[in-house]
């Protein structure tokens, strides 16, 4: 056999799709999908069809009548969600969204164009829910729900991070996140989840947080923070847990209690609350602000988050302060009030320090911590020394959920500008409402799909690299726990030399506290600028 020519070699894996997309079977590539959910995780929360299965297997061990279940589920949901039915009906395939998806930009798989990812399900909808599709079939863009089609929907529903960037550019506001959310809901009717989502969901249901941290472990984590903070500042902070009658319940993502660099953000928050003398409590039960249930079904999302208001009610607090987390705030901001409202057992949030009423949160009584802190700084309640962050040249990554599902853009920037002296924005089309996803959101931050994550994160990393080269940026700030977990490896690969921080870690560093000893290190235990070698003295 003759040796292949270079251009043949380069083409081997990429037979141009001469066939229509409907006829191309999904090709499950290692590194591009997450492992299948485990039976015990689904069983624990009573989700359908718990069993051992593997993505690579031919047989996914589906129930006999899986088609019926899926199609019935689809019909039910297009009658429950106007968004879903409308978005399945009115797309004109103009292609404006095509090149807005980070997975498509970084990887080039045509089925990652948002329009096509949605068409995968839309074609099934046409076949079973519209007259023209039923009669005209393929010519009307309809197709049978075969096992290959189901697998394809699965493969691409877990290649969407529900970041909503495409929805920003769609002339009709079609939101692929909404379609992915409901596609995943349908897949969950058949037990088609991934381990990285199903595991944390089960953990969260049982222990109140995704990591499965039990109450004494949480206490233990905080004890370590208290020790570290005493070493650094000479001040012993004394947080309380599950305390009745506190004014404010603080809820943060559990990742920030456990994994660096999120832990430093929590330490910063501890310092802030201590300095303010805030009457607040943590809860070991409401110990997770995030909600991986949101990545399975609407019902599961609600089941996991019931604990937040339940705990606020039990502890008789006045209002709830939420930490730095992305999807947590999409859920808190756009879903909580509808699920659990009216929340009349709590009070309209008022900052006890400044007296500011948080008018925009008067109904659901939850305040974002950057709103809280920005208000403090604006009212001059904090004594800050931004020079302590002079070793940092900072840029800021908007989390998809807080930017396109909430609009929290200026508050974090205001804080950053007050706690550090070197802040540079990334290019305009990659920040604020146009921000690029980290590539690992919506429960796709497993390790086995690293190639997928690195591809999806390329557009974001590319913009960071630009400011890294241009301004020497060495710190990427964010307000999302998944970001803090996944941006470090992303930077490690694409932009070595850039670390990741939460905004309140920088606040903790800059905060001048009453009675603190002269600080020589930051919260990470690294020497402060100008203090190198100080400790040896």
């Amino acid at each position: 056999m003759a040796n292949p020519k270079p251009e043949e070699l380069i083409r081997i894996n990429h037979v141009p799709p001469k066939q229509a997309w409907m006829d191309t079977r999904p090709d499950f590539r290692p590194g591009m999908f997450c492992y299948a959910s485990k039976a015990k995780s689904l069983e624990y929360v009573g989700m359908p069809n718990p069993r051992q299965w593997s993505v690579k297997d031919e047989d996914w061990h589906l129930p006999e009548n899986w088609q019926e279940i899926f199609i019935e589920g689809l019909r039910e949901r297009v009658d429950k969600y106007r968004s879903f039915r409308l978005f399945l009906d009115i797309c004109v395939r103009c292609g404006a969204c095509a090149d807005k998806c980070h997975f498509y930009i970084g990887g080039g798989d045509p089925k990652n164009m948002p329009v096509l990812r949605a068409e995968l399900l839309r074609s099934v909808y046409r076949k079973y829910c519209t007259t023209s599709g039923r009669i005209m079939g393929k010519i009307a863009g309809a197709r049978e729900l075969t096992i290959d089609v189901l697998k394809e929907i699965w493969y691409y529903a877990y290649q969407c991070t529900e970041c909503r960037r495409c929805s920003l550019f769609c002339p009709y506001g079609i939101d692929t996140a909404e379609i992915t959310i409901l596609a995943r809901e349908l897949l969950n009717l058949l037990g088609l989840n991934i381990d990285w989502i199903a595991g944390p969901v089960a953990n969260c249901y049982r222990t109140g947080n995704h990591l499965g941290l039990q109450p004494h472990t949480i206490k233990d984590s905080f004890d370590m923070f208290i020790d570290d903070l005493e070493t650094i500042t000479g001040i012993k902070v004394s947080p309380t847990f599950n305390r009745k009658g506190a004014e404010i319940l603080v809820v943060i993502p559990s990742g920030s209690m456990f994994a660096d660099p999120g832990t430093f953000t929590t330490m910063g928050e501890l310092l802030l609350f201590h300095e303010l003398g805030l009457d607040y409590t943590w809860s070991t039960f409401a110990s997770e602000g995030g909600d991986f249930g949101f990545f399975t079904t609407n019902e599961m999302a609600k089941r996991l988050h019931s604990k937040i208001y339940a705990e606020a009610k039990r502890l008789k607090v006045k209002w709830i302060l939420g930490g730095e987390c992305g999807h947590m705030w999409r859920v808190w901001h756009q879903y909580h009030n509808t699920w659990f409202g009216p929340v009349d057992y709590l009070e309209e949030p008022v900052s006890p320090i400044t007296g500011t009423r948080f008018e925009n949160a008067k109904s659901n009584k939850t305040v974002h911590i950057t709103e809280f802190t920005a208000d403090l700084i604006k009212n001059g309640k904090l004594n800050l020394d931004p020079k302590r962050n002079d070793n940092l040249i900072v840029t800021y990554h908007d989390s998809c959920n807080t930017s396109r599902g909430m609009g929290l853009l200026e508050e974090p920037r205001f804080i950053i500008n007050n706690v550090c002296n070197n802040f540079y924005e990334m290019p305009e089309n990659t920040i604020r409402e146009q921000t690029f996803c980290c590539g690992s959101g919506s429960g796709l931050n497993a390790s086995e799909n690293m190639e997928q994550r690195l591809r999806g994160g390329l557009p974001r990393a590319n913009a960071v690299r630009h400011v890294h080269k241009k301004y020497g940026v060495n710190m990427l700030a964010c307000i999302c726990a998944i970001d803090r977990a996944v941006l470090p490896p992303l930077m490690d690969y694409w932009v070595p030399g850039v670390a990741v921080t939460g905004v309140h870690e920088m606040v903790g560093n800059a905060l001048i506290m009453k009675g603190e000893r002269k600080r020589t290190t930051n919260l990470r235990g690294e020497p402060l600028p100008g203090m190198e070698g100080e400790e040896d003295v």
Partner: protein
Amino acid sequence: MNLKDLLLEKKSSILKRWFDTIVASYPPDTSNFFKSNHNQFANPVGFTFSEVIHGLFEELLQGGDPERYFPYLNDIIKIKAVQDFSPSQSVSFLFLLKKVVREELRKELQRNQFQDELLSLESEIDALALLAFDIFMQCREKIYEIRTNEARNMMFRLLKRANLVCEIPDGNQGLGEETVLTQKIEG
């Protein structure tokens, strides 16, 4: 006139052709996107490809230290290493340059006057390919390192808190033996 001048003269057509052959390895709708969008941030892949081949071509014309090729090759191979390409596919774009040059300069080369220079250019390209292969391996190793680091970072924390966390045990009866290693870190 020597080969270098000739290459310089034909630079833009050579680079255009080279670029086209590189993006032709993607599905046509995608290669069109890589080609047509010139924004550095909206289209990082296409932009990097075009930056890299310009850079490499310049360096090749100047000749010299292979180290100077490194940043360019690194940029492009990094991308290839996370996409669906085998090692050979990932470096093959360099060999395509030989073909592109020969095709672009067909007429001139027929006169046979640049044989030696062409030979040295081509062996330079071969050296580049070898370097690219090394870089590809480094990238893949890096990916695996990142993967294991993620697991190890978790382990480190967990060792400090051995047995203090629990996962849903098999069969739902009480806290099982299986505890720490598969715990998740996210928020």
